[in-house]
């Protein structure tokens, strides 16, 4: 089975230069990118086994001495390729602000409390169905200084590996119905509405655990599909 990674699929990605997000103009290439065919170097990628993940790495509420503050939630879904096939044994890493909208990172000086029981980092490896599941705290919105009264919608950062170096994806998962969506230049850097909506998780009553936690579903689609005989 030969997998291909058409560059046309990247039309769903935001442009590197997106002036509404003020850090972009000085940090993206300005000369034309060199077009090339994929070689073995692009078509291969690292394998990360279940060995590297400790039990509990996917429960962000269990990494402190006590319970973190905030609303406990379940975030789960599948990692799929462009043909809708599961991407199994794929490393999924997440990081996020706490319930008050504060990252534990030293650079974050937002005057909201740090939660000593919440680092905001978690990871999982997908099973044979491409399925992953996290237990975490619903992150808060936070100000970020991009423009007057700029606030990021609540989000969880996701880092995902597929089968190849070029299927690698870093993205952000948002929550449905966030009133900050129209005002966020990072969310809106994705100009296609349907593509933008794929970054929004779905409230998932069926996977809510009664008397314990609400659930949100977030399926992730990576580059990569089967080469069809027509194209050989």
């Amino acid at each position, binding site marked *: 089975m030969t997998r291909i990674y058409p*560059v046309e699929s990247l039309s769903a990605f935001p442009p590197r230069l997106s002036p509404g997000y003020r850090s972009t103009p*000085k940090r993206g290439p300005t000369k034309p990118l060199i077009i090339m065919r994929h070689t073995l170097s692009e078509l291969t990628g*690292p394998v990360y086994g279940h060995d590297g993940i400790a039990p509990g790495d996917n429960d962000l509420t269990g990494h402190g001495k006590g319970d973190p503050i905030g609303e406990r939630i379940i975030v789960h879904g599948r990692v799929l390729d462009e043909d809708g096939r599961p991407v199994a044994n794929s490393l999924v890493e997440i990081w996020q602000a706490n319930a008050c909208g504060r990252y534990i990172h030293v650079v974050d000086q937002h005057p909201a409390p740090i939660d000593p029981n919440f680092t905001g980092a978690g990871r999982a490896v997908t099973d044979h169905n491409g399925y992953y599941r996290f237990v975490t705290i619903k992150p808060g919105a936070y100000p970020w200084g991009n423009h007057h009264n700029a606030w990021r919608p609540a989000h969880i950062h996701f880092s995902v590996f597929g089968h190849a170096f070029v299927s690698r994806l870093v993205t952000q998962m948002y929550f449905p119905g966030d009133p900050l969506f129209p005002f966020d230049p990072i969310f809106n850097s994705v100009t296609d509405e349907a593509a933008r909506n794929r970054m929004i998780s779905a409230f998932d009553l069926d996977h809510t655990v009664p008397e314990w936690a609400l659930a949100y579903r977030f399926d992730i689609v990576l580059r990569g599909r089967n080469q069809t005989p027509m194209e050989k």
Partner: protein
Amino acid sequence: MSGITPSQTVGPYFAYGLTPTGRYAWKDTFTNNLVAAASSGEHIRIEGRVFDGDGAPITDCMLEIWQADARGQYASPADGGGSPTNASFVGFGRVGTDQAGAYRFETIKPGAVPGPDGDTQAPHIVVAVFGRGMLRQSYTRIYFADEAGNATDPVLALVPADRRDTLIASRRVEDGHVVYTFDIRMQGERETVFFEV
């Protein structure tokens, strides 16, 4: 329009999740040291700095690299990986830049790998650059100044001759250790060559 999930910036706060080294008790998934005790090949260091369009160092950048082992084999199922040959060399590294915009990797010099038409690619390492202000990763390649194969590399041949040197790491020996320098300039007169892949 394809159905893939769009990319978003890694932002300024990725370190706790992706490069926690030394910050707290959390085992790194990947680090800037790719060398395991059983890895065979020439041990090299690659170091450099990352600069923005003003020539200022980017201090919150994340670099990921992917390379073949010393024999030119990738530790990937798509290249017959998982063989005993390279089980000791994963070939993937990750690092965040420091307050000077600097990074370093400790790794093994890769071997030549097959090109797309039965030809040979000179030894190289593929690099993805992530950072605040970058809504998607940018891809470049590290080649090595002391490799004669650069002259016939099919990918370098695609690059305008006057820009090729931005992809070639210079070599020196420091205390008996081979060190390559590879700076990354996102913009400017000597902007690093990036690839659409």
